[in-house]
């Protein structure tokens, strides 16, 4: 036993001097270089795994029960993560594979799991997605699900789309993409009717933890009198009221609407990177026009979204939206001095980061350290060209496949005024002594931020208010008496 091998040592506390030395050392350029030299160890990653994203989609359809094929622990982690972020229930079940599953495969677990889940929770659909385990042992879900229906564990007609979502590949946004594609494939199979057009817009929000954003998209469509189907609509599911009755299925995209979406007048995805394969599928299978737009952060990207809607549906831009635009611009001109020239560190999912950068540049702020923790060169190029589009992007740097421990080194060696990202950034922000503006997913240490949109003209005002007023709080709280003032 290895304990025997080694000689017994004495418990020895680390000398204070040594602690002081290292405490300073981790804030140095030298440390930063060692830190950036890492090739194997990942510390404080800013991304999660595929099945989490798959569950976001799987839960976003009416009467749909997400079903995890794999270890039960994964399912519990996903559910907890959503519940902490939204402060809402997050139903999902699983087939609890264990050792024997590893040996004989997970088919029996799947059979039993589907049967029980269907009997207990009476779902209209059970999207299945996988954890590492079945992916490693190579379960054949096509066959399994076919067999489950043949053997009568679940009705033939029950939609059971599935997605392979190995955690050792991509991030949660790719799981989102895979699951959404699979659900749409399943629900729209044989629904396409030559020449038929529902006249509706299909709108895909992408992986977005902010239900306020989803509602903002819908509100804008309503204002423009454009009939729509939001594909994977989590808003009512993850932001449901408290009226004394728990509803397992609190909303989501109607399955009929999803099925009919194939005959839509147009389809818009508002997240490029989280819907790549879904949009490939839609491109080939769906009727109508297709457009992939950036999330409408800030004024110009919102303009673009609205103009695209107007163009696709030949609708005028309503007075209401013109007024909202003017109000947003008014707020931005009035408050520009509180953000102008300020440096920010930004991290998160690529589509979010694109949006946040656009907003900052519009305000004359500098997205100084931009970090996406798993991304392709393509993402990097897009972010860099966005920065190059404005003088306020000069001297700003994009980092991909880096984590929040890298970010920490950036913040302490090349300081900024604030950081924008999800709750996971709070440790780095604290060490750097700067505020963290919580935008993204997950936010598990503040309330209601997921309800307040960051997109659209409203979102621009919300972001501006959050950032400007926090800077003013800091000024009032940290200034000496002689600089404390009534007006700011």
């Amino acid at each position, binding site marked *: 036993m290895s304990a025997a091998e080694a000689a017994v040592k004495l418990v020895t506390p680390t000398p204070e001097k040594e602690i002081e030395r290292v405490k300073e050392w981790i804030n140095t350029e030298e440390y930063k270089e060692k830190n950036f030299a890492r090739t194997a160890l*990942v510390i404080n990653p800013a991304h999660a795994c595929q099945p989490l994203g798959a569950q976001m989609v799987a839960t976003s359809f009416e009467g749909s029960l997400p079903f995890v094929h794999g270890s039960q622990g994964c399912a519990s982690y996903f559910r907890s993560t959503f*519940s902490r972020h939204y402060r809402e229930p997050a139903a999902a079940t699983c087939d*609890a594979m264990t050792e024997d599953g590893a040996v004989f495969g997970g088919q029996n677990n799947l059979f039993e799991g589907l049967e029980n889940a269907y009997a*207990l929770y009476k779902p209209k659909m059970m999207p299945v997605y996988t954890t590492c385990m079945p992916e490693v042992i190579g379960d054949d879900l096509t066959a399994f699900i076919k067999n489950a229906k043949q053997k009568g564990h679940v009705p033939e007609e029950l939609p059971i789309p599935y997605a392979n979502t190995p955690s*050792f590949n991509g991030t949660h946004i790719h799981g989102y993409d895979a699951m959404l594609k699979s659900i749409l494939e399943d629900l729209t199979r044989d629904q396409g009717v030559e020449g038929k057009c529902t006249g509706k817009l299909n709108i895909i929000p992408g992986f977005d933890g902010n239900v306020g954003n989803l509602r903002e998209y819908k509100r804008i469509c309503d204002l423009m009198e454009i009939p729509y189907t939001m594909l994977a609509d989590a808003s009512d599911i993850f932001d449901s009221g408290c009226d004394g009755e728990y509803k397992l299925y609190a909303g989501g995209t109607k399955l009929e609407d999803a099925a009919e979406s194939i005959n839509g007048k147009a389809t818009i995805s508002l997240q490029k990177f989280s819907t790549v394969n879904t949009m490939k599928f839609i491109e080939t299978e769906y009727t109508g026009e297709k457009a992939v737009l950036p999330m409408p952060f800030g004024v110009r990207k919102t303009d673009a979204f609205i103009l695209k809607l107007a163009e696709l549906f030949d609708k005028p831009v309503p007075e209401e939206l013109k007024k909202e635009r003017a109000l947003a611009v008014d707020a931005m001109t009035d408050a520009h001095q509180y953000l102008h020239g300020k440096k920010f560190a930004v991290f998160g999912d690529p589509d979010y980061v694109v949006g946040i950068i656009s907003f900052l540049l519009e305000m004359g702020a500098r997205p100084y350290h931009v970090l996406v923790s798993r991304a392709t060169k393509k993402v990097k190029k897009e972010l860099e060209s966005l920065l190059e589009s404005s003088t306020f992007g000069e001297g700003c740097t994009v980092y991909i496949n880096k984590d929040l421990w890298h970010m920490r080194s950036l913040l302490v060696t090349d300081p900024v005024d604030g950081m924008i990202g999800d709750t996971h950034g709070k440790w780095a922000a604290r060490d750097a002594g700067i505020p963290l503006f919580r935008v993204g997913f997950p936010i598990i240490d503040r309330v209601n931020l997921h309800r307040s949109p960051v997109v659209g003209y409203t979102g621009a005002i919300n972001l501006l208010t959050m950032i400007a007023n926090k800077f003013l709080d800091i000024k009032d709280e940290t200034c000496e008496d002689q600089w404390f003032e009534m007006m700011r």
Partner: protein
Amino acid sequence: MAERKPIKGITKERTEKLIADTLAEMPEKAAKKRAPHLGANEPTSAKCAVKSNKKVVPGVMSQRGCAYAGAKGVVWGPIRDMVHVSHGPVGCGVYSWGTRRNLMQGIPGVTSFPMDFTSDFQERDIVYGGDPKLEKLLDEANELFPLAKGFSVLSECPVGLIGDDINAVTKKKEKEFDKLVVPCNCEGFRGVSQSLGHHISNDSIRDFIIGKFEFAEEPGPYDVALIGDYNIGGDVWAAKPILEEIGLNVKSVWTGDGEVEKIAATHTVKLNLIHCYRSMNYMCKVMEEKYGIPWLEYNFFGPTKIEESLRAIGELFDDKIRKNVEKVIKKYRKEMDEVIAEYKPRLDGKTAMLFVGGLRPRHTVGAYEDLGILITGAGYEFAHQDDYDRTQPEMAKDTLIYDDVSEFELEKFVEELKPDLVGSGIKEKYVFQKAGIPFRQMHSWDYSGPYHGYEGFKVFARDIDMAINSPTWGLVESPF
């Protein structure tokens, strides 16, 4: 300890009918599997009839986690001066990063590591194996965190499936670093719950840590170790001072705010005091066999149990300690009476249902009762027979006992028993709050705490009162 008075309205018939009605809505096979896990309490029977520690029934929406969760989240994570590597894909480490509230002292990134270290497996690591990456990342960790007292490697599912040999790697690195480098094969697919993760971790500690260090100072007659307190919301910081106040010498804590060298030297203490029996009884038994260290279970929830426990501890020491015990009890009694005087009038006669991990449902009963709250139902996510045996005497006759209860079942039970409070986890919280039922997370103390010790009871009482008596519940019913 006297048997509880029966609770008004709780009868064997009602409880068994409730169970039967619930099972009736399940597929036969599932019902058959679940039936043994549900029962009416028999405080006096030798053995609890409720079965436990069995596989989750697929599809029923269990609240259970996995072995990795039990190992990383519960046992290892709280050891503050080690770098704990979540070895495998990115997810497990991210989801368990900072979500258990095992607080720790130290300077983050310097002397403590409340961070997420992972090998973030990619396809190639699955195909070619993760050992080379593991070796590399340990080198990187050792360079970037020179003051880390050691490293733990916690395997996630793929590692065990692709035939990696992490033990070989850790053994090699331990030599190289001349620091503890500990393997823990806690793949999530192993066993039926977090519980096996505890056991596997205990074994790793047994095999790779315990006995490797000794305390510089001479052993003393009052040296004890505090086992199975994970410092959730600061519990250890509220419990340890009490033991010190009665004159004991707490040499190490397992593992809340823990220091690995002290843990490794625990074999020299005179007594192991264990709070969470479920997750660490293995180690106590090991140290008892191997080093002849006796161990004692204690309960620091609520004044009644604290006093019982202190006296029991005193019995294992001399008069000096026993005197101190009575002094301490006397000293805090007044404070505790004030707390009870403030909150009990608002809580007396209320009922609560509990569903937590492997210890708290039975351990917190006394604290609720100190406030006048009756427990009408209790169960565990991952407890074993011995836990249930310890539970039944703490519960009133015919109250509902449920093991690994599914969301479906718990909803039915709560609907019928209409408790004034449900104490369980984050996944259950909002389900019941939507129904207008006050709820407290009893894994994480709902972002509050500590709940252990005298300090903890003040917080516990305040929180339970806040949950049950928040005026916001009165807003749930709409006039339209």
